């Protein structure tokens, strides 16, 4: 087989270029940290990576949704906590008033405190989360109750019955608002009843208002229990979401990230091969017969 200088030169050049390409490719992987820099690097891996990234981003969004929903529920609960306090105070006053042995000045003192409580509860029903009212259904740009009266009174309630929904997992929505009228109507009714009884000095009405206050307490407690249940559900959803996120991140890393240890090892090897090919080429192309003739 004839070997000529031209063939040796061509061969050396091609191999040097192949080795250089390999070194360049590995360097790219190491500096970018990613095995997949374009779809042709690993077509199946690319499709997987895109899908996992999408799932991961969506999962993070659901986490944010859950956080926001939890905050909304917390705000509602704390407002209802204050409402419960006001309710207890009102009931105390009702017990006092139903006693039957009040002087007119006592009665007017209680009346003015009840008025204040009515305004206070109305104010609490205007609680907001950010810029949204908590107790107006989905009409969250405006206060629900406009008067300290139950929604059966015309014009007292300007909100609606809509439920504020949040999507917390694919296809799973959770209502974060409580029913405003079911929660506040009994309390406003009870306060009005007591106020009416005090005005008319009617002990029977005042005594009946005790029962109304109990009903009101039930309503508020029911609402708070609902909130508690939903909060618990959201907590466990959040935990699951977090672990899903962690898993997805791990999977994504497996698919997409370069294994630094093996990449660096391969890179060092490739560099060595490259250097060896340079050296071998340099030596093999130098000698010819002409060196030995004079």
């Amino acid at each position, binding site marked *: *087989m*004839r*070997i*000529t*200088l*031209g*063939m040796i030169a*061509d*061969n050396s050049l*091609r191999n040097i270029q192949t080795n250089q390409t390999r070194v360049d490719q590995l360097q790219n992987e190491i500096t970018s940290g990613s095995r*997949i820099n*374009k*779809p*042709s*690097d*690993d*077509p*199946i891996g*690319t*499709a997987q*990576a*895109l*899908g996992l*990234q*999408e799932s991961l*981003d*969506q999962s993070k*969004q*659901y986490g*944010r*949704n859950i956080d*926001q*929903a939890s905050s909304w529920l917390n705000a509602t609960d704390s407002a209802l906590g204050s409402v419960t306090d006001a309710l207890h105070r009102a009931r105390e006053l009702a017990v006092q008033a139903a006693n039957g042995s009040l002087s007119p000045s006592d009665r007017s003192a209680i009346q003015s405190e009840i008025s204040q409580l009515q305004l206070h509860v109305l104010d609490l029903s205007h609680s907001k989360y*950010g*810029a*949204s*009212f908590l107790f*107006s*259904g*989905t*009409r*969250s*740009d405006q206060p629900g109750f406009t008067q300290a009266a139950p929604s059966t009174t015309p014009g007292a309630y300007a909100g*609606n*019955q*809509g439920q*504020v*929904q*949040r*999507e917390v997992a*694919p*296809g799973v*929505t959770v209502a974060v608002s409580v029913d405003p009228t079911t929660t506040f109507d009994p309390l406003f009714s009870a306060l009005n009843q007591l106020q009416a009884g005090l005005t008319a000095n009617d002990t029977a009405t005042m005594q009946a208002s005790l029962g109304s206050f109990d009903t009101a307490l039930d309503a508020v407690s029911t609402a708070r229990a609902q909130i508690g249940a939903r909060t618990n559900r959201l907590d466990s959803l959040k935990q699951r979401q977090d672990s899903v996120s962690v898993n997805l991140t791990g999977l994504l890393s497996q698919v*997409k990230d370069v294994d630094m240890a093996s990449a660096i090892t391969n890179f060092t090897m490739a560099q060595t091969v490259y250097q060896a090919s340079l050296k071998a080429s340099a030596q093999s192309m130098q000698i*010819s*017969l*002409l060196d030995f*003739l004079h």
Partner: protein
Amino acid sequence: MTSPFFGLDIATRSLRAQQTLVDIANQNIANANTPGYSRQSGVVSETMPYPIPVFRQSGAAGQMGTGVYVKEINRSRDTFADYQIRNQLSSQGRWDARSAALTQLEAVINEPSATGISALMTKYFSAWHEVANNPSDTAVRANMIESGKALADTFQNTASQIKAQQGDLDKQVGLTVTTINDYAQQVASLNLQISQVETGGMKANDLRDQRDLVLDKLSSVIKFTAVESAEGSVNVYIGSHQLVDRSQVHSMGVDGSSGKNQPVWTDVTPNTPVTVVDGKLQGILQARDSVLQTHLDDLNATAARIIESVNSVHAAGVGLDGNSGRAFFSGTDALTIGVNPQLTATGGTSLVAAARMQPATPPATGYTWASGDGSNAIAIAQISQAVAQRDVAQVGLAPAQTFGPSTVVGLDLSHAAANANITMNVTSGAPNPTVTFTQGSTTVNGTLTVGTDASGNQIITVDGGTLGIRVTVSAASGTTLNAALVPMNNQVAHTPAGPSTPGDQYAQQIAALGVDSSTAKSQSTNQQVLVNQLDKQRQQVSSVSLDEETTHLIQYQHAYQAAARVISVVDGMLDTLINHTGH
């Protein structure tokens, strides 16, 4: 007996022959690095011996050799290797062109990346979640519109870059055809020169080398068949049409009348298309017409799907002005996609339809909407998921809303079961609208039945027909509909066929691109290896070995010296004979 001068003659011939051989070796050494050069060798032979047999012979010892001459100069060339390598060069040209186009397309598509379409799609649908969390917040709405714009811009950008790449390839077709004609011209003129030389009895080695080099270059551009004729010309055929006929060229041209450049033969009328097989030209044509076109079509399909789904759900919801029927995206595919200008104009954020018409609280009747309702925003966000159950959207036109012909009422019926009956509830007397169903570009008149339901409300029942319909309510321009036209809530099961989410559809498209590109790359590399192998075989035969030539030079030099020595000897003999014999 021969004359004393006979020896001079032999020696002279030897000098001449060795001189020629040295010249040939010199030529080889000088051209050791010339591309396409095949080493030449002189064929030395004895000259005619003396005497020729005749009737009356002299009787002396014979025949006497008369010396040496260089009979012919040959080039060492393996023509079969030439034929083999040209086939592989054609394949290589095709795969290289294809691989280059796909690599460029990958750069344009730019996946996987945080700024690619996949990431932007996810961001867009996440932004709808944020709108659902905060339906009346202007900043959140503005942010969502921005992310919609970013998505639309990226679709447009990518699509127009693919089109631009197609345009570039189109230009390249023209340039490649010019190159083919150039090469053909060179072959033709070399044919002429070679036939002139060879009919004169000589060998046109250098010219043949040049012609073979041009044919190699031509073969990587387009595959041809070459036939050598008796007088040394090579006739080149592409398919069954002749490109080079001895010294004549039948040129190719380009026909751009169909909007794309196609190679045609210009020597027949009407111009017939060229049967392009293999080579760079075919690679470019395939890349332009099938590879890039397929990916552009896929991109358009993904964009169209998003436009269709988002628009139909968006039109079903109401903005902060209580009106429905607005599209979110404008355009129909990746090249034309944009955000509805109404939404990007000042005050457009309030037109984003995050809420839906909901039944009013009894004792109120009819349907109302509220600004804190984010249910439509949730529905749009769910487009990115494979959600199992979907509501048929509710839509309402506010009482006394004026609408023109073909107002899109906007029902998302894309997940309705086939042939479902969709019931529409008209709450009070209204002019009977005509209802047409549009699916893609097919329009069908819906069957409309007017009746009354249990509450005495007028009901218009429309036959749902096939999946993915959009209800267009049309009436004469300026007509006032003085009631809400609203469909009943209809829970339907959703069975996705094919890629269940837009994200999956897009990911599949990218995977296909990746497979295409990596196949092209590995084929290109394989071809390179094949070509290298065949080239090595060729070079074994044809390339110049400096060691070989140097050895030959030493040989010829010695022979030359010996011949010169012989001349001195004969000279001495003559001197003896002429000057020193008898006086």
